[in-house]
């Protein structure tokens, strides 16, 4: 039961029920504004029938040549609206935009400890492309999985052949 629509600035005044969840970070305004200014089509919000924000996705398109891809920067769903398939619809949307932009693949980073999310992404067709060592700073630092799913343009699925060795964050472009 969802209305997907472009995220607007005013939504930041209403997203507390999503963002107060400990797994969702609230960033400085510039971060959101930069995405809104550069990739407005990649920033979507899911609204409930009663007008509450259920979740949102923000992303971007970047890369040169065969590295031209869609990237999921943040995906979050309010605790009240979980297990309704919302994350999947938001991901679908982002993949759809990436297809339209003729991207080769879509990628995302996730904490290796976040089993729930990793499983969900696997169910959506993502594979662990590589491990990025100590990508998340904290105490201690935590590794990230760089997960990928090929778009139709990557006919031979070249972009989703997993790397055998982990990489350092500075080697990730």
């Amino acid at each position, binding site marked *: 039961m*969802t209305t997907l629509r472009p995220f*607007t600035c005013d939504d930041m005044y209403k997203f507390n029920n999503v963002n107060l969840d400990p797994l969702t970070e*609230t960033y400085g305004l510039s971060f959101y504004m930069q995405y*809104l200014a*550069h990739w407005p089509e990649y920033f979507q919000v899911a609204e409930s029938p009663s007008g509450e924000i259920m979740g949102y996705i923000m992303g971007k398109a970047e890369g040169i040549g065969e590295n031209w891809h869609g990237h999921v920067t943040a995906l979050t769903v309010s*605790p009240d609206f979980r297990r309704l*398939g919302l994350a999947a619809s938001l991901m679908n949307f982002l993949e759809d935009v990436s297809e339209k932009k003729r991207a080769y693949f879509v990628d995302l980073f996730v904490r290796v400890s976040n089993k729930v999310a990793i499983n969900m992404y696997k169910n959506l067709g993502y594979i662990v492309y590589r491990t990025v060592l100590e990508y998340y700073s904290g105490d201690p630092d935590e590794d990230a999985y760089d997960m990928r799913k090929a778009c139709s343009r990557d006919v031979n699925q070249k972009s989703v052949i997993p790397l055998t060795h982990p990489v350092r964050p500075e080697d990730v472009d």
Partner: protein
Amino acid sequence: MSRPQTNSHVHQDNSVVERRLRPIYDWLDSGNNKKALQECEKVLKKTPTLQCAKALKALTLHRMGKQNECNAILELLTKEIPSDDATLQAMALCYREMQELEKICRLYELVVKNNPNNEELHTHLFMSYVRISDFKSQQQTAMALYKSKPKNPYYCWAVMSVILQATRGEGLKDAQKQKLLLCLAERMFTKLLNDNKVDAEQEVQLYIIILNLLEKYEDILDILNGPLGSKLQCTNIPQAKLEYLIKLKKWSEVNVICKGILIYSVDRWDIWKEYINSMFRLIPAESSISVTGSSGDDADSPDDTPEKAHEFICGIVENGTENGYLLRGPYLARFELCSRLQEKQMNYSDLLGDLTELFIEYFRKFGHKQCCVTDLRSYLKLLDSDKKIDLSSRLIKDVGISSTGVPQTENQMQRHICALQLSRLCGGHRNLPTEHLKALITALSLHYQHGYQTYGMNLLPTDLGPSDPYALMAAHCLYDLALAENSSNCIVVALMVLESLLKNSPNNFHAKLLAIKLYHVLGGGVSAHEMYNSLDAKHLQLDSLGYVHCARLPTTGLFTLCTNMFETTLKFFSSNYKDSSDHLTFSYKFGSFTKIEEFMDFRERLNNSLHYKTVLIDKVILNLVECMSLETLYSLSISTDINWEILRDNHDLSVYNSWDPERIEAPPEDWSDAGDLFLQNIRFLKLRSFVLTGMASAVNIVKSLDGVRQEHVQTLKKLLEDWRSLYEQTVQDNLVPIKQSILPLPLPSRLHGALLAPYYSVFTSFFEFLLAISSDDSNLLDKRTKIVEDELDKLTNVLRENTLKKSNDFFDKRKSMEIAVNCVEIISISCVICALCGELVKPLQAKKGKKKQPDPMGKEYVQRASEKLKTEMGRFCDILQDWVESNPEEELDRKFDNLNLAVSENVFEKILQSYSVSNKEIQLILKTKIKLLT
């Protein structure tokens, strides 16, 4: 900070220059201005003409507060008309930090004049106009840029600048002018079109913006259907068309498109609403009902009767589940259909059967999902109160848990929680006898414990406990009970419930929000603050959630916490207002024209936040309260420049869960109480701002010489006039505090507490006293001194009566604390005014050769006022000392012993502790204040 680019036009070898300048940038970045300045001097010694070094020196000097030296360098440098990017950027940054955005425009105007073909400099000029919203200059610059470099984006910048002139510039108040400008924008764009130059998606979007403003919806549909539409890569064309078909009231097409979408995406709520709405628009007038309509299952023909719509919905339900999730869309669509039928007073029972059954059916299907409550919430208005009570008991029965039983599965528990929440929404907890309410609270607590032990162990610390909602509702019910019995003890128990919940689910933000509110209800500011810190609210949340804690702190007397909160909040607002112009320039850079007006609106919303202005004024007031010397006073920026008409209420009240029946109709932001509170808060702030403006003109009087002094005297007199009339108006309006019976509503406005303290009369007496001194009229002065003394007596009485009340209850104690803080504010700031008066009667420094001037006559009177202040402040301290020793006694209801609350820390003690911290801080202020007068 950006480094010199390799393409800079400096005369020296670039790499050498870059190497020399690098240390300056590094010192600036690390905030070491002194070192940066030394480095600048060093570089300038070697290369005295290096412009970038001069610009960086200016920036450094500005950051060191040496504004005059900074200005001198900038002025000279501007005359040289630099053209290298690094120098210009450093100068622009300097102007930005000085908040002199216009000067950036002037700078680039000169530079561009000198380098008419430099694309980059032209772009900087354009962006400098964007920052100050000079749309006309934007347009001219963009056109000039396009002429020298004919690229589409520049042309579009010009078109967008014309649109903004129409919507926000000249066209804003002149409909004719607006139309003219929009037509101009359209013509400009058509030219691009005719030249076959339109290519990018953003350009088509721009075209649609223009046509939309001109209400040429047919033309937009033509675009969407035609070759230009295919350039809209990321747009879903059928859905985009929907918006304009609705505006054109083409209901048949709307209906058919919606059906087409819904067959594949049965969960699209926005589309369901439009589908049902369009169906109602299509219902033929009664006289012309024809029986010949085609059958309802044809996807290409519109549905024009409720029957057909119902059939369509049922068809989708029967087609079953799509992807494993049971989809709520079509089920909820029936409620929407029903709601619209009832609105139009049409019969719905023939079509949809018994309404209560519809709710029960939905609950059976989705009751195990948390969203079931919010889904059904707004449709509960379809039921009258009897039916609501009926539904409420049937839902509870349907869950199948006896009054002594417990849920057998997690699923059943969730259904139980859902039924309880719906039942509260139906009014099931209203007007319950207190014995029932207590029994309910006990039951909820036991359910919480059972749920926690059975389903809540071994969760991640980031998870919310599945049985947490029981405890949250118990806290709500305890709040009800506290109001019913007019006793704060139940709120102490509620806080114990919440604290023990948080031991099990340390990240439950609902519990934290509730606890912050309840601590503030009892006046436990320190505990509220700890809780607020654990919420980790930041950035925009400082505005949207500012009411939760920051706005309450000034009533607690916790001055240290106030200082920190004010600082964080103000830093957020001022830095974001500065940065937000950057986002606008990005939108131009990336051609996101659809976002430009949105960004501008957002920027204004942020800058006109009532919370922002309140904190701004609170901070200055606090500075005055803490002010220890006239030098400090003179260094404060006291002036307030608030446009009262455009203030915004940015509070997110919906963040609080509410299962109060009022929530059925609308979210709390739309309740009349929220509107009343907003107006009361504005009134409060207006009255409060007089303290500052009064103070500012008093300072002006003291600092000015005889010639101009009279002007400031007149200003102060006028101001006191205005103050009086607003004060009298407010007393007359007799504004009632907003109701407290609903938990998500904020606490009542500070206006009411402010009116109980004699702000107006005491300050007026002091300002009149100051005016009397400057008038040199001894009779008047004697009279005014007496008034000051009388007013101070009254002030002390207010404090005494307020604290003498037996505070056997935290409700009373909190209110008393708020008034006490107000009284302390009044007397502390009075001391500052008195010190100013002292300055006015200081003998003037005798100049050489002139004979010694006589002492101004007011000295003895100022002495009298000053002595009186000292006496009263001493009394204040005595009263407060007595007060801190009289505390409410803990007499928690034995009935709640069985709640089994395992809270090691005593909530009661924590709140008392908070009061004692406040009291100490207040007394400290008073004691140090005495020094100001000696």
